[in-house]
């Protein structure tokens, strides 16, 4: 067992973990961050995606100890970002979900994608979001929601 410190959504958090624990388990079970979903457990579905030091990674493929001293952002943490809040509203407006289980991962990933490239469209957008799977198949509503939210990421005042 060792104690690690992770900045989760802006707050410094400590957790006592085994070397072989996955970041996914620690976030959900020890730190109470439940927007991070556990589904396939093998890096395929992307529902456990978090931003680790700003980059999207799948937390079922990441050891908790690897995140020691790093910063993790999940869907909960995006609330403080005005653009990301508008992005989430856009998901609602476009009905970009059916069961909603994949929504946090899609929000986190599309926030990252739009922050880097607010002009993204077409095949590029689909490719950038290819790491997250929606079993209900609401992809087209998700693409619409993200495309519609581009204006907030281009807006310098937000």
């Amino acid at each position, binding site marked *: 067992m060792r104690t690690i410190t992770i900045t989760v959504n802006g707050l410094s958090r400590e957790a006592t973990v085994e070397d*072989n624990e996955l970041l996914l388990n620690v976030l959900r079970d020890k730190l109470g961050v439940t927007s991070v979903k556990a589904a396939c457990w093998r890096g395929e579905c992307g529902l456990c995606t978090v931003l680790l030091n700003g980059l999207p990674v799948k937390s079922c493929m990441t050891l908790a100890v690897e995140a020691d001293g790093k910063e993790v952002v999940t869907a909960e943490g995006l609330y403080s970002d005005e653009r990301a809040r508008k992005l989430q509203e856009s998901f609602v407006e476009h009905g970009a979900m059916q069961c909603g289980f994949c929504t946090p991962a899609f929000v986190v990933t599309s926030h990252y994608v739009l922050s880097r490239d607010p002009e993204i469209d077409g095949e590029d957008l689909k490719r950038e979001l290819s790491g997250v799977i929606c079993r209900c198949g609401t992809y087209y509503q998700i693409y619409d929601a993200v495309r519609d939210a581009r204006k907030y990421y281009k807006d310098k005042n937000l």
Partner: protein
Amino acid sequence: MSFTTPYFTLPKFTYYKPDNVSEALSLLKQHNGKARVLAGGVMLVNMMKERMALPEAVIDIKGIGELKGIDITDKGVEIGSAVTASELQKSEIIKKRCQPLAKAASYMGDKILQNSVTIGGNISIGMPSTDGLPALMSMDASLEVRSADNVRTIPSSDLVVNIGRTVLRADEMITKIVVPHTEGVTGTYAKFLNASEVAISTAALSLSLTQKKLRIAVGAISAKPYYFDQSLLGWKWDGHLEENIKTSVEIIGSSVKPMSDAVAGSEYRREVSKILVARALKDLFGGA
């Protein structure tokens, strides 16, 4: 690979995060075959979930600066083994001088996994599905392999022995990839996936019109990629492109012995490989 095991836990191991390569190598030596190197973790973590890898020590090399460089030196382009697929695609050096690799990196897993996947990990697992190895072979890349006591350089084409088996000893790791003669070399990479996104065949091409060099590596159809150069392909630099492509594709089709498995049969893989190579050659010479 079994799909019935619950993959929620990992076996017990001790995690190490060395600051530099020599520390990592002495840890590997110290654990005498019972340690595994963790880079992106994309393969290793899943293998541990399946209990296909049971290391007593896991050595995380991701944060080691020495393994993260992409530099132009007198040997060519030198790439650290812990450079990620995302970093390869963003690098101006790779985009300009190692085109097959830049494109191959865009096929390594999905966009999120590409932030984790490393070039060293992608090739050193020794699986036929590697995108990195055919790309490196098409550029005649060599690999710097280090252990605590030794440094050796091997051609990328010598890395894989059989499926899941490489020439790397348990105390060794790939530290660097060297791509020689990259000036004026263009290239491309093509991949054909089945509906579950498993590779049927891949083709990596490198072309230098000034040096009259054309190299093709066909991957994912056998334990290790097949390599062809202009002489093996009977390429005529003053001949018609259509004729050249026809001859090359026939030669490749008749010399490869693709594997048959649950993903695809041997003959299907052969036909797909021929089509991939033909298309990639058209693309490459169309743009040259």
